[in-house]
């Protein structure tokens, strides 16, 4: 292969330990006693359950409906009966629970009616929907719904479609075996992606420690007359990171912070995803099983085709774990995690189960202080300065960690791998990231609360101002009325008032109070008059006058504004 390859900075060469599990063909895993199918298996919305306890289901029947565009359907992996739809532990480092459909297999493994898609009659949007309906998600690790990646970024020509078959993590061989045994379907699935994206080039990148897989893929590509380039890439962890593989194969550097590689005209799919896509398009089979590597501290390591939802401990038994096994790592030893609960089911992204033992993975030596040797910086494929990040993360100076690009960290583990002081650097970075997210969430909540508070203040101020305006008007009206009363009083006989006042001062005070109250009430009524008659055009005024005239004729004469005070004034008397 004459393709020019590029290098990425850093990287490490851990012992690959792949020959443990790649020496024998893929075995089908027997039906488990019970399947626990989590509804949330991909990035994006949690699919809504379509079944309930007691429902019979067939193999491939949809049991969870995609929720939104970034989400994918979930299907029954075999025929049987739904036992319950309830919360069960997820295969996640948190050990939290999520909604799962629990199915008791009936042993018949009876398929629902299914068949290939009629691609000739389907638009690209139809194919996307078809893949979503068949639950196709990225099988490389992140589990991003595949249909969401089958469109070029507007304005950016799609230059390269890359099939990621590097499989750089030690121990894992599921992609290796898949390529050796099922290369034809992978190539067909790749062709589907090619038809959707219309890239200039299609490159299948495979680490050069998998010669059998490379040969099988080359043969399949040739047999199908495709122009895909099968390119061996140097074995260097993490060459299988999407951005590292893009760098190696195309020379392009997609910044860590850039979400979609399509923005740079590249799209990457895992080799298993291409296979699953073809099983859906070409056979109508939804994603209900996957190849899982069973390895580590076991007697018979290998790869099995396992149904999604198979409990991990049950699946691992097939490889006969040694008695000193004390845990299960899901994923590889560099980026995987010890599952908090071994009954957790495998999901679409579970590529490997490693039986953990202290013999195989000795406990880490105690953490020493950082001596700033810079080994981590020389290993970091994103060219970060992990020891500086560590320093600031430890000091909880999260602003500084962002200045040192913590969000460009892909948590590949190279820094922890080389650190002579045995500092769990990645753990510090995860901590810093989650703290920053939590703080940003908090800040957002606080900002929203502040906005609400400020609006409330503003509203209260406005209401106060309106009230003050009303009061001012009322005061003005009262003053006017007092002036009028004073004028009237001066007209009356001067002798009467003193006599009256002298006769009953208490009564007079009462009367004055009543008069004042009435004046206030009148002012309020006046103030409450509709204001939309204040500024009228002559035409409107004329029209109103005409209406008034008609009303009067019809005998529905409203009381004149000043008639009301007159009557009320009379009542207290």
């Amino acid at each position, binding site marked *: 292969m004459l393709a020019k390859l590029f290098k*990425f*900075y850093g990287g490490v060469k*851990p*012992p690959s330990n792949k020959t443990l599990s790649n020496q024998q063909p893929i075995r089908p895993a027997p039906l488990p006693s019970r399947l626990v199918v989590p509804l949330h298996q991909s990035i994006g919305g949690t699919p809504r359950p379509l079944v309930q306890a007691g429902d019979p289901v067939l193999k491939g029947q949809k049991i969870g409906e995609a929720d939104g565009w970034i989400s994918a359907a979930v299907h029954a992996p075999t025929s049987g009966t739904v036992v319950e739809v309830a919360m069960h532990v997820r295969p996640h480092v948190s050990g939290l629970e999520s909604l799962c459909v629990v199915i008791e297999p009936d042993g018949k493994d009876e398929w629902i009616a299914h068949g290939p898609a009629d691609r000739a009659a389907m638009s690209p949007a139809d194919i996307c929907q078809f893949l979503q309906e068949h639950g196709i998600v990225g099988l490389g690790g992140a589990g991003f719904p595949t249909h969401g990646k089958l469109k070029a970024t507007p304005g950016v020509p799609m230059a390269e479609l890359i099939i990621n078959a590097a499989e750089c993590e*030690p121990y894992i061989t599921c992609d290796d075996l898949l390529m050796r045994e099922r290369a034809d379907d992978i190539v067909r699935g790749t062709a589907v992606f090619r038809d959707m994206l219309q890239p200039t080039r299609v490159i299948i990148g495979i680490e050069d420690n998998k010669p059998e897989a490379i040969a099988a893929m080359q043969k399949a590509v040739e047999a199908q007359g495709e122009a895909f380039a099968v390119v061996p890439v140097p074995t260097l962890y993490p060459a299988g990171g999407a*951005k590292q593989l893009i*760098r190696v194969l195309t020379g392009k*550097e*997609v*910044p*860590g*912070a*850039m979400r979609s590689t399509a923005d740079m005209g590249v799209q990457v799919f895992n080799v298993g995803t291409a296979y699953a896509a073809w099983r859906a398009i070409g056979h109508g089979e939804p994603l209900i099983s996957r190849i899982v590597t069973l390895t580590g501290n076991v007697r018979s390591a290998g790869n099995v085709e396992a149904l999604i939802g198979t409990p991990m401990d049950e699946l691992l038994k097939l490889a006969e774990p040694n008695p000193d096994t*004390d*845990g299960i*790592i899901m*994923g590889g*030893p*560099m*980026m*995987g*995690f*010890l599952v*908090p609960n071994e009954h957790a089911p495998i999901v679409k992204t579970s590529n490997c189960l490693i039986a953990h033992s202290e013999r195989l*993975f000795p*406990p*880490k*030596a*105690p953490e*020493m*202080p*950082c*001596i*700033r*040797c*810079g*080994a981590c*910086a*020389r290993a970091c494929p*994103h*060219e*970060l*300065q992990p*020891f*500086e990040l560590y320093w600031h993360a430890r000091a909880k100076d999260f602003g500084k960690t962002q200045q*040192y*690009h913590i969000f*460009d960290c892909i948590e590949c*583990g190279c820094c*922890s*791998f*080389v*650190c*002579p*002081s*045995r500092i*769990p650097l*990645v*753990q510090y970075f*995860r901590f810093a990231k989650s703290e920053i997210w939590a703080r940003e969430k908090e800040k957002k909540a606080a900002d929203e609360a502040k906005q609400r508070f400020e609006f409330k203040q503003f509203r209260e101020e406005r209401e106060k101002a309106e009230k003050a305006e009303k009061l001012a008007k009322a005061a003005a009206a009262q003053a006017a009325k007092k002036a009028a009363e004073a004028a009237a009083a001066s007209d009356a006989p001067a002798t009467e008032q003193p006599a009256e006042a002298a006769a009953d001062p208490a009564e007079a005070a009462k009367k004055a109070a009543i008069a004042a109250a009435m004046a206030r009430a009148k002012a309020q009524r006046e103030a409450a008059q509709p204001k939309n008659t204040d500024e009228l055009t002559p035409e409107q005024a004329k029209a109103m006058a005409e209406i008034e005239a008609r009303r009067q004729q019809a005998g529905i004469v409203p009381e004149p504004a000043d008639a009301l005070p007159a009557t009320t004034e009379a009542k207290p008397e």
Partner: protein
Amino acid sequence: MMFAPAPYLLKDASVSRVMTMVCLALIPGITAYAWLVGPAILVQLVIASVTAIAAEAAMLKLRGKPLAMFLSDGSAIVTAWLIALTFPPLAPWWLVVTGTLFAIVIAKHLYGGLGQNPFNPAMVAFAACIVSFPALMSQWPSVGLQMPLLDQLNVILGLAPRVDALSGATPLDAMKTALKLGEGQVDIAHLLANQDIYGNFAGRGWEWVAVGYLLGGLWLWQRKLITWHAPLAFIGGMVLISGVLWLYQPASFASPLFHLLSGGTLLGAFFIITDPVSGCTTPRGKLIFGFCAGLLAYIIRVFGGFPDGVAFAVLLMNLSAPLIDQLTQPRIFGMKGKQS
């Protein structure tokens, strides 16, 4: 259920392995030293090591740190060896002990211990002692030391008188003094002809010790414990300034080769300015650090009052290292050619 974060595979690396390799890399230089200059250096290495371990243990105890874990990291031994190698081989025992105590107690542990010291502890020890005991720190065996080990031991332990014959100057110092006394009448070519002092290139015996350090340093580089940046820049800085002055006035300024092979140049280039804790960590930072240290070392050793300038040059650059690191952060993946 146990919890341990990924990665579960770890490279076989440790601080003690790093320090052991540094010590191993010093062996060629030490061998040449003991063979050509005198086995007294072995005594000094032992004195410094024992003092360093004792001081380290005491400080760890005072600070409430686990003894076994930190004593076995080997960092105190590296410091001790560097002190022994930079002090005069026949310095009295208490001088080496004082220097080592100063390095371990003050320069290392009072700043927070392993990984926290802003200054290179060995260079702090050297600076403190040369300022406090300038006469003793300048007494170097004038010629190849041919006296028996027992006599050397007696001198170190103060059991024998410090006779004048033992207390010459380093070739660097000798040349500086001779040039000063000669007041322009003496030129370097004549001085260098005295092979008793200056050997073939830069100092009888000493030049081969320097070559030993060079070999050890190259091995460290080959084993990827150090990068080429700081040593090469240091040597470059030294060669540049000495070369320019030498070309300008060869009678008064020694050649770059003389400066490379004399004093602490090569020990400094590979074992001192490469100290990651007190030096720069970014590639460009290491270049700046090394280059400036080379210039400063030359200026101090040629124009200053001390016999050599490496220690002060390193300490001055230690001061600037954090700033240099901040200003030389490399561009990260995907951000090249862009404002970060």
